[in-house]
């Protein structure tokens, strides 16, 4: 770990200004991500701006939406009764994330911005396009069991590790930010970028831009939902967030988001298109699962994910749709 300057403020504007004072700076909340990365010299920040004392720790409930402050701890989201009632998928996803100790520390904004578990990224002895742009990607021909089959590029196949983010893209969450250029609101699907040729740019956030809150629009659809994860006790190899609204045995509306298989929290519009309006039965689910992986690019050690994610999509839909 390199020496660094620690700064702390109680004002959001002050935190943004502090972050802008150094181009290597990082915000730190729970610290469960950034400290590890600094220990391993993957990130070398000269300045850490502690945001734990900003007024961003509230969960606000209204009839239209629940808004979760950026600093709310993951464990507090799990415990919240209104979230449990309206967004059971989110509670389920977080319950399968990390460990109780980490959930007690980690913030929801840190969870969204956590970095990939790609072991090539996390070991500075390897080349990595995400860490050192243009240095190469040994995962392509290397041990890529944990890597992505969707959203990959020739520069990067690292997965996004968050379970919560997968649930949030299924829930049409909106991210509120505050930064040097003022306030922004964006659909969560816009927050993370695909790796493309610039895998080092993981989100659309500017340097110094802070996530302030996550807004979850209340919807009848997502009350009937499920988050399914493999393995349940570690970072996801494959996960499926599903919600179904059924009318007269036809699928009126649906959400499918995938984790562990894609370079960003993955909303599968292909699978949703195959389901929306279709009859509620297993052959529909199979068609949706096939659509979800139609663009998959498997590699030597992760090709099983093509099969696994389809099995999980079908099973999750059967469970949520109550189809035997």
């Amino acid at each position, binding site marked *: *770990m390199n020496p660094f300057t620690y700064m702390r403020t109680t004002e959001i504007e002050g935190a943004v200004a502090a972050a802008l004072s150094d181009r290597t700076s990082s915000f730190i909340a729970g610290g469960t991500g950034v400290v590890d990365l600094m220990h391993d010299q993957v990130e070398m920040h000269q300045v850490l701006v502690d945001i734990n004392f900003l007024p961003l720790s509230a969960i606000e409930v209204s009839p239209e939406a629940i808004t979760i402050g950026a600093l709310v701890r993951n464990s507090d989201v799990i415990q919240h009764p209104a979230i449990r009632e309206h967004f059971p998928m989110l509670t389920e996803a977080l319950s399968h994330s990390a460990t109780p100790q980490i959930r007690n520390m980690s913030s929801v904004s840190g969870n969204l911005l956590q970095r990939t578990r790609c072991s090539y990224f996390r070991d500075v002895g*390897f080349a990595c396009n995400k860490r050192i742009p243009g240095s190469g990607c040994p995962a392509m021909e290397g041990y890529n069991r944990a890597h992505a089959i969707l959203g990959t590029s020739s520069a990067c196949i690292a997965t996004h590790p968050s379970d919560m983010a997968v649930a949030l893209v299924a829930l049409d969450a909106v991210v509120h930010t505050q930064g040097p250029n003022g306030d922004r609101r964006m659909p969560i699907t816009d927050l993370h970028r695909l790796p493309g040729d610039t895998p080092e740019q993981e989100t659309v956030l500017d340097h110094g831009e802070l996530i302030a809150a996550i807004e979850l629009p209340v919807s009848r659809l997502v009350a009937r939902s499920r988050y399914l994860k493999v393995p349940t006790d570690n970072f996801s190899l494959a996960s499926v967030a599903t919600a179904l609204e059924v009318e007269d045995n036809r699928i009126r509306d649906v959400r499918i988001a995938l984790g562990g298989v894609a370079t960003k929290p993955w909303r599968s519009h292909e699978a949703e298109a195959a389901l929306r309006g279709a009859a509620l039965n297993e052959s529909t689910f199979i068609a949706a699962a096939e659509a979800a992986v139609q663009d998959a690019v498997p590699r030597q050690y992760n090709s*099983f994910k093509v099969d696994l994610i389809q099995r999980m999509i079908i099973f999750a839909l059967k469970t949520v749709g109550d189809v035997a």
Partner: protein
Amino acid sequence: MNTVLGKPLSRVEGRLKVTGTANYSADVSVSDLAYGAIFGSTIAKGRVIEIDTQAADNMPGVLSIITHRNAPKLNQVNMFPLGPAGETLVPLQDDTIYYAGQHLGIVIAETLEQATDAASRLKIIYAEEPATATLQQAIARGQKPEAFPGVHHFNATRGNFEQGLAAANVRIDAIYSTQMIHHHPLELSATTAVWEGDQLTLYDATQWIYGDRNAVATILGLPQEKVRIISRFVGGGFGCKCFTWSHVILAAIAARQVGRAVKVVLTREQMFTSVGYRTPSSQQVILGATCDGTLTAISHTGIVQSSSFAKYPTPVGLLTPMLYACPNVVVNHQLMHVDAGTPTQMRAPGEALGMFALESAMDELAYTLKIDPLELRLRNYAQDNDPQSGRPWSSKFLKECYLQGAVRFGWERRNPETGSMQDDGFLLGWGMATAAYPVYLSPAAARVKVFADGHAIAQSGSHEIGNGTYTVMTQIAAEALGLPPEQVQFELGDTTLPNTPITGASRTVGSVGPAVQAAAESVRSKIIQMAIADSASPLYGRAEMQITPAEGRLFLTQNPTQGETYSEILRRHRLEFVEAYEETLPRDADETDRNKVFSGINALRGPVDSKYAMYNFGAHFAEVRINPVSREVSVTRFIGVFDCGRILNPKTAGSQVLGGIVMGIGMTLLEETTTDPTLGRIATPNLADYHVPAHPHISGIETVFINKPDSYVNSLGSKSVGEISIVGVSAAIANAVYHATGKRVQDLPIKLEKLL
């Protein structure tokens, strides 16, 4: 009298451990301490062209940087089993790189943070060469393995294998492979080196203080008496702390270089490349049998890996010749050199690997013959003698293990058809396998002092690696002295104490225990003799055999009211304490064994070089539950029944065998160190990627001891519990997975993608 031995005494050091006051090697505080950060190669093969230290040299707090350019010339030392080194490579002697992670130097600084930061600023330029870093890669590339080095007579033949196979009605011929695994004890390897003049003290996390002393003295060119090793608590070893590795030497030379004490703690990442590993293996097993299940031929060929520069042999087929009464057996071991570090011992080093193969093959045979797997084993049971050596068993209650395990597990309710047992949509599978592990014994010494206030101190330079040494030795001394265990203090982990062997090969209780017992009995006898000869004693004029020790008193067995306490005798004689020192040899050992062990060289007697075939035995029964969607396997029930002789403490011994089963579950389902196929560098060097079992993986484990003493092995009747319990676990689980799914997984670990 039996008041303490055999009782489930809780760990005597438990309070220290749970309150954080047990000082492990990295916890020692010494004055004027500096910190070392080791750095290693990122390439697997080649040479160092340049290590640019300029940026690091000028960083605050940096005291010195040692690389091969300025390191002192060091001496060679023999690698285990001929010597105490973990590998033949002595650090920093030239620019050659043999494996990724090989230590290339050490930065010494005022603080750990400064040392680590400076090490990260070094620029190392390499001349890289293509590497073959894994066994599977070497096999795929057609590289030829070589025979094991000549000193190891691990191969075996009896009868005529070809004829036996020709006589068979059915045969199984399969290749089984196992993965690279790392030990990962909770405690990272750590060494603090303190020089006082030419006297070196090392606080080192080691399972072998005398071997460590020998290795360090030899490498640094010091007489052994100039080196002292202290290791009061070891936070788990599992084999990776048996031998002296590079970081120990680097700590010592760093401390000498900067003229200050230096502490070195390996990082978790360095634990993957600095202290050995369990070799991967590729094994071919051929079984021939008649229709009634009688084995007519067994062939077991095992290929394991070692580094390119050392011949470290891991014999996977040691148990194959003794396990079944088959007349025709051939066992062959081969070694493949690859561009990786040297493997080392790990809990049942070869046995855990070989029994996965052999006991999986037995299950395949059982299915081929449509004979119950347990019944197949009973039909080939070797009742009286080791079928290989012809020697009688020192004791063998394997049949009892099988039968007790089967009853407790409910084995008779098993429907042998694959996929036939389900629970709530999940697939259930039941499998079983045999466990065995040799009894190894070594010479040892101990000293016991009884003090005038009635307490006693027993000393023997052994090791507490979590195995319960403090507790069991306390019990042994207390039992022999007739003292309550809280009146006895046991001291270990210091080369100034009486000599003992390595805490490896499950030999500590069986080897050190008799020495502690002998020294305690000896001091007891001295004090009784004092009383008998003393007209002021109520025991005056009595014979020693008439006297019983209990609760701190010596009294007439026939009349317990007639006697007196240790205190009363010592005080009357104005003695502060009375002490005795004793050495014990295993039955078949000699003075040469003793002299070797006492100078830090391994010497042991096992079933191959004793008059009796001494083995531990056991049987595993596993239930797996398999998710029908994801094919994830979980072990929901596991019963292990063990014949380890007399159990001196069912609590600590129970923990040992439980731990071995947990480790076996890890080896079977989770643990795997993967190496990047192109770069030859470990691709998953952290515990986020390298998964070990956690609570969700280990429910429903039950362990049982037969608990019958072995009258041959030693004065305590105890065989050994450290390693036996991991042997066969993988086969029991793999066999259960087959029963559940009809898929025979022959390569570990059993990951879900192998069952999709």
